[in-house]
């Protein structure tokens, strides 16, 4: 009746079967229309069925040609809806886990229940518990139709019953056939499969098939490292003791022990045999160690390590290959030929960056260490990634180099760096009570600012960004004081060289607190005005991690009937004009969680030696001052006068040194030792050490109000600034050792835990200084870095020594760390 290959016109489309969907919706969805021409078994029909299947809503779909006339046809679409999930009950697991299971398997009401859904859920849940050591987990899933349902659709309830059984522990691991390596050594090789042991706390004894399989490979690797290159696992079996314990029996065949014979290099023209041998560091007669050999040829764990491959890859030989070949195995001695195909040196052809939705090209390209026309170098690519990360505009973990179009014939290669912008602006808006009243703070800091777009309305998204400049504004005010500060810096002033120009301006006014009226006395105030100009240049010598910075700063203190602890006079002024020169070397690989590199800085801050020429006899003044009694009101006035003379222009020099190192001890676990030292001195001993610019040791290290040039030095385990005299110390030193472990280094937040031991001391005079007579502490802490908030942290430190003036050790202190990066 129906003719194959004949075109029929659709007369009518009907939908039948057990479906709750609107017929017209189904027809539209099938893309078949009245009046369309169709062929039986043709593409159009097949597409309609495919489309309907694709909706995942139906359990059965049939398409019929009915009422076939001369050249017209009716089409019947017969459908059966898949049952929808109504309710799920999970049995046999903790309540808290139920939601997790439902979520992970997408067992939600209204989900269509297919066989596939049931099977995958079953397997997923079983594996989930097996991975946790519940080796005997059984999962059963049954569905039952909802009876007397008011809804037209077919719906089912689901029961998921989980029988976790007992947690299975490994009672024993038995090795057979191991004559050369001890059981102990082999058990150690199984990194994640361990025997029951009440002492071990970090790794639980459980059996997870996947990690067991991996461990068997590392078992063989252990053999290989010891010269047994033929070693293999002949069999391994699980012995079930009872529901709770199993034993593993592993039967190995060790084979013979091999040693390295002669090692020849073949094909090397760039480097001499001798040079390559020095990198390989494997000699004739050494125990054969395939793992070590592989590592010395190409160490995959350390892309910047010292190995043969890097000596080629870092100097242009992208297309080089290095293969060790065993040329003869005479008995147990293996002669090797290291065959090197050097290839043509490769040069970068195009170098690109993508993903910079905010930052302008010129800010990025100037930092690249791989440029068009240059010799290919893997080390330079790695360094580029590190330095782009350090800019702070991109997520350091997500910078990826894409090496494209390698062309061995022309000797060219392209590289494209993919970056992911990260929020580099911070807004601080806070209000709180402190210092006897309400304090409001507004802080804005933009680290990828674009000053040239400041009048461009379109660039406000929400602030003009992308030129790598930084701009910060901070306003803080309470009844007692007001502080305004502004700073700006451009890292490549002029755009030609990495010559940083920075400037900052600050002003603060403080009123005297009147204890009688309990209000600030607005007629008595203390003003500080500060201006700083600085420049910084990246150096090329001795290596290009160095930065030389210089700055000139001026501060003016002015007192109006204001008696503070800082000055012995209530009316007067003081000027601080100083020049700072600092040399720093920074080679850390990540600004937030460094795992490698170090940070050194040394600086000197100097004023002019005014006393050399201003003709004031400070000797006499000093003698007079010493003869006076500060508690005698008349004498106090005179002391004030003398001090005004001494502090008209502050005369001092200050030297500081600071260093910290970062080393990855094991995977991601980072050790950070650091030392620091500071000294504040006077050119003229009779004029004396100024009461400004001093060091305050102890506590969280957060400086909140530091316009007198004071330096707050962190020493956890003690109250803030408790380890220096009230006016501040002139010498300090500090040692610290920190161990850090990352909890997450994701994009949204970077979190790490740390533990530390540290110690430090500060004194007022050099003759009291003893770098080993320190106050010690130890403790634990946590740091959270989120792009919008900056750094937040908490440390619990235990001070082992008494703070000055006390006898008992200080004990526990809690420190909150906000916004400070170190």
């Amino acid at each position, binding site marked *: 009746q129906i003719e194959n290959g004949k075109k029929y016109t659709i007369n009518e489309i009907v939908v039948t079967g057990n479906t709750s969907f609107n017929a017209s919706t189904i027809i539209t969805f099938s893309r078949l229309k009245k009046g369309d021409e169709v062929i039986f078994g043709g593409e159009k029909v097949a597409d309609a069925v495919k489309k309907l299947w694709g909706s995942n809503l139906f359990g059965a779909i049939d398409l019929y040609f009915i009422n076939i006339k001369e050249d017209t046809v009716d089409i019947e679409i017969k459908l059966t809806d898949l049952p929808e999930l109504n309710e799920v009950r999970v049995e046999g697991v903790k309540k808290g886990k139920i939601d997790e299971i439902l979520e992970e398997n997408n067992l939600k009401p209204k989900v269509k229940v297919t066989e596939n859904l049931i099977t995958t859920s079953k397997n997923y849940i079983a594996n989930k518990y097996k991975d946790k050591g519940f080796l005997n987990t059984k999962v059963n899933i049954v569905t039952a139709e909802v009876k007397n349902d008011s809804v037209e659709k077919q719906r089912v309830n689901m029961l998921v019953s989980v029988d976790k059984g007992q947690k299975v522990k490994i009672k024993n691991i038995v090795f057979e056939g191991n004559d050369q390596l001890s059981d102990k050594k082999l058990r150690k090789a199984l990194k994640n499969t361990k025997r029951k042991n009440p002492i071990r706390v970090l790794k639980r004894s459980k059996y997870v098939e996947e990690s067991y399989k991996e461990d068997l490979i590392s078992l063989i690797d252990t053999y290989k490292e010891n010269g047994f290159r033929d070693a293999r696992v002949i069999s391994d079996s699980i012995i079930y003791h009872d529901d709770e314990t199993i034993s593993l029996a592993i039967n190995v065949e060790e084979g013979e022990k091999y040693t390295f014979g002669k090692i020849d290099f073949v094909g090397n023209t760039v480097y001499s045999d001798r040079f390559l041998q020095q990198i390989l560091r494997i000699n004739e007669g050494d125990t054969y160690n395939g793992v070590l050999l592989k590592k010395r040829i190409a160490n995959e764990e350390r892309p910047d390590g010292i190995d043969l491959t890097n000596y080629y890859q870092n100097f242009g030989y992208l297309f080089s290959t290095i293969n060790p070949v065993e040329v003869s195995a005479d008995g147990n001695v293996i002669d090797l030929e290291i065959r090197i195909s050097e290839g043509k040196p490769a040069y970068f052809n195009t170098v690109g960056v993508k993903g910079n939705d905010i930052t302008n090209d010129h800010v990025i390209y*100037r930092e690249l260490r791989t440029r068009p026309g240059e010799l290919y170098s893997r080390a330079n690519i790695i360094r580029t990634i590190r330095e782009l990360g350090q800019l702070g505009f991109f997520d350091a973990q997500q910078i990826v180099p894409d090496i494209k179009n390698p062309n061995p014939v022309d000797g060219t290669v392209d590289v494209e760096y993919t970056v992911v912008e990260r929020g580099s602006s911070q807004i601080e808006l806070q209000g709180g009570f402190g210092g006897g009243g309400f304090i409001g703070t507004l802080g804005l800091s933009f680290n990828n600012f674009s000053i040239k777009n400041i009048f461009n309305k379109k660039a406000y998204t929400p602030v003009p960004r992308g030129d790598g400049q930084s701009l910060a504004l901070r306003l803080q005010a309470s009844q007692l004081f007001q502080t305004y500060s502004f700073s700006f810096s451009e890292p490549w002033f002029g755009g030609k060289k990495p010559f940083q120009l920075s400037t900052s301006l600050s002003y603060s006014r403080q009123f005297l607190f009147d204890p009688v009226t309990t209000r600030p006395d607005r007629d008595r105030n203390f003003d500080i005005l500060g201006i700083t100009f600085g420049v910084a240049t990246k150096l090329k010598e001795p290596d290009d991690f160095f930065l030389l910075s210089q700055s000139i700063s001026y501060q003016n203190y002015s007192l109006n009937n204001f008696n503070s602890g800082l000055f012995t006079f209530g009316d007067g002024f003081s000027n601080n004009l100083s020049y700072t020169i600092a040399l720093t070397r920074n080679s850390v690989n990540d600004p937030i969680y460094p795992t490698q590199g170090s940070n050194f800085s040394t600086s000197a801050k100097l004023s002019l030696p005014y006393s050399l020429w201003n003709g004031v006899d400070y000797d006499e003044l000093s003698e007079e001052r010493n003869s006076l009694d500060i508690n005698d009101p008349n004498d106090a006035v005179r002391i004030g006068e003398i001090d005004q003379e001494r502090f008209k222009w502050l005369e001092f020099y200050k030297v500081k040194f600071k260093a910290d190192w970062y080393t990855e001890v094991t995977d991601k676990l980072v050790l950070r030792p650091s030392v620091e030292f500071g000294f504040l001195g006077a050119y003229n001993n009779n004029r004396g050490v100024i009461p400004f610019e001093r060091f305050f040791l102890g506590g969280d290290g957060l400086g909140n109000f530091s316009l007198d040039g004071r330096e707050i030095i962190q020493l956890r385990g003690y109250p803030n600034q408790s380890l220096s005299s009230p006016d501040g110390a002139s010498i300090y030193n500090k040692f610290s050792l920190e161990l850090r472990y990352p909890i997450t280094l994701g994009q949204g937040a970077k979190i790490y835990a740390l533990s530390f031991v540290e110690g430090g001391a500060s004194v007022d005079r050099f003759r009291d200084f003893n770098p080993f007579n320190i106050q010690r502490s130890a403790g634990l802490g946590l740091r959270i870095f989120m792009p919008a908030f900056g750094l937040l942290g908490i440390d619990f430190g235990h001070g082992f020594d008494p703070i000055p003036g006390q006898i008992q050790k200080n004990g526990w202190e809690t420190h909150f760390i906000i916004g400070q990066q170190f």
Partner: protein
Amino acid sequence: CNDFQKAFKSDDIALKFEKGTELFDAGEWKKANRLFEQIVPNYRGKPQAEKLLYMHAMSFYKTEKYFISGYQFERFASSYPNSEKQEEAAFLSAKSYYYESPIYSKAQEETTKALEKLQIFINSFPNSEYLTEANQLIKELDFKLEKKAFEVAKQYNRIYDYKASIKSFNNFLLDFPGSELHKDAMYYRFLASYNLATNSIDALKEERIQEAVNYYNIFKKNYPNSEYLKTADDLKKDLETTTSVTVANNTKS
């Protein structure tokens, strides 16, 4: 406004449709968009959906939400291949992507995408009334990519990496043979090679001066009347004097 609130809060989808259409015709794109947003799922598969989806996409376009309008118009064009609005929707979709393209100095993924979409449009509707405009947009986007490559190459010269600059200009001239910046690129390539030559140690000078003179000759041959020519001539003269000095020095030693 009251009518809008009523429609907005009502459960009557027909009322929302009607009011939305009215607002749409009156140019109240934002309000219309809010109403359409509510009812689009309800009309899926219904005959009115064609008009609704068009208006919905257009209301995004008019409120400059180009990222969404690009997607919505694209969907409309593929869902209703027989619609009389299909050509317009296809064009506006491509144009939406054009609007998403950022300034040349930032990542150009969107530019590349917009170029692709515009090209597809031109291929699908070779006789379209929007053809001139589409070509205009393509030209503008192409220029953005040229300008990007040009500025990067120029910056290398600025930061004293002359070799990278020359190499980048060479790549530029290969990649964009018909560029508006062709002349500038040839001039700046010469300038970078001049800088490289004059800042080289004596042993390398002669060869690099040769290369620079070569780039000068190519530039002059292509653009004999360029406004840069006078400066270029001066620089070339400078190179020639240096050459004689260097040659003299080299022969002496």
